[in-house]
């Protein structure tokens, strides 16, 4: 990339994006539970309140609808709020405010007002946090018109996408998989932005396409590395944003490989993988050499006990088996 690089965690990449955007634009402010004094439960906003003050780093009561509603009203009147919902699971407590208000206001006004706001939240299982602190609900928000969705899998993507999200004029749901917070990656010292709607080919390959998201990306890459040893050359695609979705990169890959496995951590039924599979079945059918294969979590709430949770979360083994299965068709 021609820049000086440094290696940092996903958490710190998100910190940097927020910090830099708040320095750059006085209209950016943060609102959410335990983001100020505590600095977020994962330390994302540690020291932000010292630097930017409590007017711009706003600790709220436990009122998720008010957090989102407040962000909406501020966004409509010239500010650029970044709201935090502590866990994605709690978005059920402000679902109306997100889906019937934030996502629809521009449209309902006839395009006369913008709602430039970002909702950050953490999703995903892996911490034995059980059924109400571990969910992946991206498919739900993908279905509701009017909200963009970023799903970074690396520190680099997280920082670049978050900056784009904050500067954009639309509501954005920014998903942080909690198991990725402490994974590391390189990012440039220089400022950079990553546009929405551009998938990233995380690994090139010619035999099979693996489309994966969030915490599944590192697993898909590891699976591809293992498959490579057996002479199977897998391409790993990370959509990076679900809305807009870069259909073209996915379709081009499928046209090249003829075979596709789509893996996400969501409950399989009605997952974002279903939308991606459907697009392929509609628009790249002629190039398919085997059935499409989807991997997801079973259609159960997230269980607590470690062996149950391990079984629940898609892993390398399942990806490898799926690839082998469709290669043998």
């Amino acid at each position: 990339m021609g820049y000086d690089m440094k290696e940092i965690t996903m958490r710190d990449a998100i910190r940097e994006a927020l910090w830099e955007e708040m320095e750059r634009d006085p209209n950016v402010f943060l609102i959410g539970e335990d983001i100020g004094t505590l600095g977020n439960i994962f330390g994302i906003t540690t020291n932000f309140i010292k630097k930017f003050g409590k007017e711009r780093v706003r600790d709220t009561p436990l009122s998720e609808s008010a957090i989102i509603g407040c962000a909406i009203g501020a966004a409509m009147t010239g500010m650029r709020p970044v709201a935090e919902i502590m866990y994605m699971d709690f978005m059920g407590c402000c679902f109306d405010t997100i889906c019937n208000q934030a996502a629809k206001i521009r449209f309902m006004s006839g395009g006369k007002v913008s709602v430039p706001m970002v909702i950050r939240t953490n999703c995903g299982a892996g911490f034995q946090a059980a059924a109400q602190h571990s969910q992946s609900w991206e498919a739900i928000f993908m279905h509701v018109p009017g909200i963009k969705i970023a799903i970074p899998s690396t520190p680099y993507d997280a920082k670049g996408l978050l900056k784009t999200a904050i500067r954009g004029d639309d509501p954005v749901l920014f998903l942080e998989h909690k198991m990725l917070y402490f994974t590391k990656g390189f990012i440039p010292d220089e400022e950079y932005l990553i546009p929405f709607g551009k998938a990233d080919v995380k690994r090139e390959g010619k035999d099979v396409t693996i489309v994966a998201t969030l915490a599944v990306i590192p697993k898909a890459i590891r699976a591809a590395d293992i498959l490579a040893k057996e002479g199977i050359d897998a391409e790993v695609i990370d959509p990076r944003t679900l809305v807009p979705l870069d259909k073209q990169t996915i379709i081009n890959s499928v046209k090249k490989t003829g075979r596709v496995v789509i893996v996400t951590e969501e409950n399989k039924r009605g997952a974002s993988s279903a939308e991606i599979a459907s697009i392929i079945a509609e628009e790249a059918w002629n190039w398919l050499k085997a059935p499409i294969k989807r991997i997801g979590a079973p259609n159960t709430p997230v269980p607590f006990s470690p062996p149950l949770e391990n079984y629940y979360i898609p892993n390398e083994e399942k990806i490898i088996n799926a690839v082998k299965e469709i290669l043998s068709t």
Partner: protein
Amino acid sequence: MEITVEDLLDKYKTMVKIRRFEEKVSELFAKGKIPGFLHLSIGQEAVPAGMRNVVKKGDYLISTHRAHGHMIAWGLDLSKMFAELFGKETGYNRGRGGSMHICDPNSGALFASAIVGAGTVIATGSGLSAKLRKTDQVTICFMGDGATEEGTFHEGLNLAAIWKLPVVFVVENNMYAISMCVKNAMLCEKISDRAKAYGMPGITVDGNDVLAVHKAFKDAVKRARDGGGPTLIECLTYRHHGHWEGDPDYTAEVYRKREEVQEWLKRDPIKIFEIKLKEMGVLNQQIIEKIEKEIQVEIEEAVKYAERSPLPDPEKIIEDVFSTTDGV
């Protein structure tokens, strides 16, 4: 209370304008000329009129499914309102919204949500925004009595209170949320009592007395503008029509007793104000006729404008989802 003759007449005109506008809407709906769901505020006109000449340019308005009166009092143009009701491209929302969502963000009339209670939390945001930008803008947030039963009411009022946001929450207590009488929906005596749970001043006024409403608005807006934080104003009023045009209660008295309706019809806010203004010597039959005539002309022209306006182009709806069409 000090109030100028102009202001008095302006309030009276506003009330008559809302009334005649909605009568026309009712008539056009009955003829099948207006589609969708219609909620009229006939009988409740004193509340929005009370807001006139209290709010100023730069202030914000957040409203509900029953918003025609609020929007007219805010100064919206009847032509573009009718155009919206007709689903025309020239309507305020370019036909995307309809009666329940007419708004005009450019003049500060930010949004009208038909999800009961949704507005209270959004109002905290325009309030906070003014505070952060250090302006003296005030947000007026209207809601019905039923809205105070929603969780968002609790969250919105609490946040506004603890952050001392410049918001005035106005409850138009017309005693019913569709068929649910407010007396069966809460045990506290007045809705304004609920303000105490948020450490916020709450006041109940006769919502059919435009001057009482005006006074309450004046105090609350002043408090908000001066950094004193939010207020809850409860205005006791009554809708003459059904909950929606077509509500069987309007003719069959399903949930409101005839005597109750009769009683409230006698307390028509326009009639009451008319008598008072006549007593004060500010109004007479001649002025009334002039006002009525002007409004009639305005409405007729507005309807004509709306009728002549083009329908929106369906293929364009994807343009209004995001700021660009990427990702629609």
